[in-house]
């Protein structure tokens, strides 16, 4: 049986791995390749690099650090951030990335997903999805809306309609970040992850909100996620990946050791 994946997310700014406090004030925490190697040795199943340089400032995508990661890391890794064209896919994949994530550009021009999938295959086209719930007057969730530009712009699009369109076009995996949960450390948006898992037939990586081990257990058991993204939990040294995996294994979740 396919294992549930634990996927560390590493933010990259100007070729350095950084961590953000409340989405600002980046502090350098190391070299992207060194950090990736460390997490790999500790049992990470896959890595996701979020290049915040590219997405915030529209700079040209930098690829030197990606090459270094590819040389030192022997597990799959995705690069997300600032990807706009099929040419961007080509450059990142050639530099050694296994998958490329696209977010705002796919919302602006959904055909990008198809163009990339037709050339490189669905397996390396990852849809980055930022979502926020819409409530009714009784404070019940009516639906979720798609956001872009690192969660700054609302699109008015319905999340489920969008992921169905995106997977039809060529997205082979979805990283779903719930903006209102991100950085709060009070758990993933399990309800949304569960809904996505029911509605589309591609793997779902849950992102945003993990603060303790039980949150990961919950998103696998109740949300039916295929993978859980972890960031602050491990970057701040609260947990190691092997601790996370031992815990999940004890809870009868099928993880790789």
């Amino acid at each position, binding site marked *: *049986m*396919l*294992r549930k*994946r634990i996927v560390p997310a590493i933010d990259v700014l100007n070729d350095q791995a950084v961590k953000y406090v409340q989405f600002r004030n980046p502090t350098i925490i190391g070299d992207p390749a060194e950090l990736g190697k460390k997490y*790999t040795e500790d049992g990470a*199943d896959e890595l996701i690099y979020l290049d915040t340089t590219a997405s915030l400032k529209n700079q040209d995508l930098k690829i030197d650090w990606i090459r270094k990661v*590819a*040389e030192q890391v*022997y*597990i*799959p890794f995705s690069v997300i951030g600032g990807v706009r064209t099929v040419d961007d896919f080509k450059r990142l*994949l*050639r530099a*050694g990335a*296994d998958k490329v994530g696209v977010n705002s550009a796919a919302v602006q021009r959904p055909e990008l997903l198809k163009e990339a999938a037709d050339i*490189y*295959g*669905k*397996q*390396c086209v990852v849809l980055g999805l930022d979502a926020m719930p819409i409530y009714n007057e009784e404070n019940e969730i009516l639906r979720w809306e798609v956001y872009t530009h690192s969660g700054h712009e609302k699109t008015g699009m319905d999340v489920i309609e969008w992921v169905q369109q995106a997977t039809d076009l060529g997205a*082979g*995996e979805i990283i779903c970040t719930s903006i209102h949960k991100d950085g709060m450390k009070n758990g993933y948006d399990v309800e949304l992850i569960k809904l996505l898992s029911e509605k589309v*037939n*591609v*793997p779902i990586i849950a992102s945003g909100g993990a603060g303790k081990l039980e949150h990961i257990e919950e998103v696998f058991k109740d949300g039916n996620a*295929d*993978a859980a993204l972890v960031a602050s939990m491990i970057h701040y040294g609260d947990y190691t990946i092997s601790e996370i995996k031992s815990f999940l294994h004890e809870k009868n979740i099928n993880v*790789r050791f």
Partner: protein
Amino acid sequence: MIGIIDYGAGNLHSVLKAIDRLGFETRLITKPIDHEESITKLILPGVGNAKVAMDVLNNSGLSHYIKEQVAEGTPILGVCLGMQLLLETSEEGNTEGLGLIKGSVPEFKENIEKVPHMGWNQVKDVQNHFLFHDIPENSDFYFVHSFYAKPKEERDILGVTNYGFDFASVIGNEQVMGVQFHPEKSGKFGIQLLDNYCK
């Protein structure tokens, strides 16, 4: 020297880098070369579409080269799509393969599990094959594929993985071998498997 068949496959460089770092000499083979070149083993990488890959191999003369080398006893290891190309036919683009192992390559049906089969899954070494030397039983390897190998002969199945049903994740017949997963992306045991093949 390990000859890596270069026909534009997506994972070529990660395979190459992994072999280099193990300390083996490598050479990219883009067209049929003289046998004098002391190529002792071949690797056929591959990510992408079977029909497209076979067209490139056929048009460049590499298909003929590979078959000739294998006939002379040179071992070959197919990786992912490279493994699927070792069989006689593939449903992906309805193409003929290299025919080095008897059997076909059907597509996963979506009603069984999510397609593609993507992620870490266990491989059971069913024949105590040397590729698994120094690798613990039922270790995990990283898979990404929508089609799978279906060898005609039971004896050509070296490793088995369960994804809704048991499929052949490692195949082989004498000096012809193939792995469906990506050893170059499967952490230390993947690297161990490449080392086992190359040495």
